[in-house]
């Protein structure tokens, strides 16, 4: 599991790349990737799951926490490139109703 954060496009794009298992073990690293960021006006979060191969319900919970943080700062959360298996989990939870999924 690894969580890597990059701030791109003059701070307008905050990208978080997750690889390996996206589960309970990633919760601290995932929160640390965005909690300290302030002055987020106009910025959006991009969660890239291309290299993630597993996701459980606690990972869904982490996305909900990020959504709350983003909302309070007026930002959107975009989930990118989920693999087949992760896409199924997002679909069963109908998270496409809460997030933009590309």
């Amino acid at each position, binding site marked *: 599991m690894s969580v890597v954060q990059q701030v791109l496009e003059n701070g307008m794009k905050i990208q978080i790349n997750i690889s390996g298992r996206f589960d309970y073990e990633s919760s601290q690293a995932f929160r640390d990737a965005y909690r300290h960021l302030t002055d987020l006006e106009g910025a959006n979060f991009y969660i890239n799951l291309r290299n993630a191969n597993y996701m459980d*319900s*606690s990972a*869904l919970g982490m996305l909900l*926490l990020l959504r709350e943080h983003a909302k309070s700062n007026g930002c959107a959360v975009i989930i990118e490139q989920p693999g087949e298996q992760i896409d199924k989990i997002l679909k069963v*939870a*109908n*998270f496409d109703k809460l997030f933009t999924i590309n």
Partner: protein
Amino acid sequence: MEKNNEGDGASDNYILVIDAPKETIEIKKHLVMNGYKVLLAETITKAEKLYKIYSIKMLFISLALIDTGAVQLIKNISQKRINHKKNSQVAVILLVNARQDQALHDCMIAGADDFIIKPFTKNILLARMHAIEQLLDVKRLEGDATEEQKIARDIFDAAIKTTNIEIKGMRKHCQPANVFSGDMVLTGKHPSGDVYILFADLTGHGLSAAIAVLPVSNMFSHLIRQGDQAEAILQHINTQLLDLLPTDMFMACCMLKINVADKTVSAWNAGMPDVYIIDRYLRSITKRFSSIAIPLGINELAAEDIHFDSVKINAAKQIFMLSDGVTDSMNEAGCMFGVRRLENILQNNLSESNLFNHVINAFKHFKSDSRIQDDVTLISIALKEMLNISDPVTNSVDVSG
């Protein structure tokens, strides 16, 4: 009379040393001098007898006795298969020669806690005893905590049982990952005559997941008795969960309504795996209720967000549902049980009258000895019994005859 020094190790509990008589003289001397009460046994058989009579907290077993049932004794003690007097926490320490590495390995696997290599000095023995006593304290605390959790779980189970109704033809298989389960099955009879079933899975497992079980089950049974419609019940539960649960926790659920008079099943699935309607005579899955909504406890839920899908039922139909703990389960090789495997098992056994057992056995076989990571629940409802109508196959025989 032997004087009992009230030293560091003094207690009502005995240390049992199992070894050849000449080997035990030294160790007994050291232990007694430091306030321990010591019992000696030269054979495993004698040790077992003493174990049943005295309150023993620590056993030293010499691996010279490996061939005489030492491994079995260690297994029996560590798996609590021998009734033990008073104290439930016991430590097993092996006395080993440097060359007995295979026997040492076997005994540690069997459940021994530690080992000391012979010859050892008095100070090494006492240092080890000190470490082992700390281990016993931790074991005791852990045992107490598990006991408390079990009591709390019994209260939970009793609370749900008193409000649930019995459903004819329903079978359940539950394997919690912990003492507590975040999976729950609530049943109730609506004043209209409909049978309501709420099958839910709270995120995570263990106590934190189970904390919402009681309020949800109370609300469900109360609102049904009051005659509230399924939509209103779901909305109320959702509001309560929004108040109760932290942001990152939620409850996936599927609400089922069975109308016996109209012979229909209606379902609304919010985040659970597909619910299957199986026709045992057509040998096919005739309907799936897939998840069409986000789980409860995340967003506000309006009545118009809840759409029940309905299907006609008859005596050949069977409802089959499961929590994601089944499909997401991994075996020792790191393979996932998966939806495809589950559906293959269903497809290949559709005509079986004990389809449910086939699925459970296949799951158990898949898991083998590997640990359950998430709460596992499987439910089957054979509608024949509930509808109390005659079997369609019997009917067709009657017609042709």
